[in-house]
């Protein structure tokens, strides 16, 4: 009888702890890690821009994308590829220069109609 009670108590404690742990992991689940995610699309900056303008781009929003192109403009933490997409990197201090060709992986955020650019953030360099 006593042993049964103890087993029961142990089970209750274990179950409670498991629920707390589960609740904690669900609630405090961190942000996506884009650089570790599998890319859904792999395309050139030009193609991304053209497809966006043709069909509205809903399928790209919030997706992990690999985009490639040539740097046409630079700022401290971001580059413009082919005057078509703006890429903001996670890491700062990347050694890049105008004219470099590269592929990046990042999250497509949306379309900027003021500058007519597709915006990508949380990017990292793929090659």
């Amino acid at each position, binding site marked *: 009888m006593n042993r049964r009670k103890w087993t029961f108590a142990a089970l209750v404690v274990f179950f409670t702890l498991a629920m707390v742990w589960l609740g904690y992991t669900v609630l*405090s689940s961190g*942000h996506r890690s884009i650089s570790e995610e599998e890319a859904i699309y792999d395309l050139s900056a030009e193609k991304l821009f053209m497809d966006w303008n043709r069909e509205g781009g809903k399928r790209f929003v919030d997706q992990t994308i690999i985009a490639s192109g040539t740097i046409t403009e630079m700022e401290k933490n971001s580059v413009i590829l082919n005057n078509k997409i703006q890429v*903001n990197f996670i890491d700062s201090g990347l050694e890049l220069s105008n004219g470099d060709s590269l592929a990046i992986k990042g999250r497509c*955020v949306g379309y*900027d109609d*003021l500058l007519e*650019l597709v915006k990508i953030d949380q990017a990292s360099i793929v090659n």
Partner: protein
Amino acid sequence: MPTHMLKGVLGFVLVFLGLIGVNAQEKYIDKNGIIIFEASEKLFEKVKATNETVTTIFDAQTNEIACLALVKAFRFKNALMQEHFNENYAESDSYPKAIFKGKLVDFKLEELQAQNAEVDLKGKLSFHGKDKEIETVVTVQRAGDKLAILGDFIVTPADFDIKIPKIVRNKIAKEVQVKIDFKLAKK
């Protein structure tokens, strides 16, 4: 073609090019502007998000200013809060952009020296399918070809027809403070 006609055409072309040139020179652009909004209540988790990829264009000839923030680029510390913000409050799939269009009232860029100037900013903020008139005072600072615009203003969720469910009502402030921090460069 007679010479005088040629001259006329040439003159027209030059004037036209000149106009383009002047226009191009008077635009100031920031592609990585910062907007922070906060609606935190004491004792509860901070309700605060930052967008570091805001686009701003300022036309120094007309004093018109336009800003565009992609709603999905607002980053919260808590990923779940960010998800709720996008899905239930801002509905960023349906309303992906926050746009401000306005004017720096009576601002004269050429008279602005190294010291800061307090300038009235008036305009319309469109977010979540609703428009709200904004009137605030911003600090403008000039350093060569760079222009910094700093300021803040208050909005409420009701301004944009955003309903806060009862269950979280005491965790989200009634007033949302919005801070802007733009560093524009002459283009």
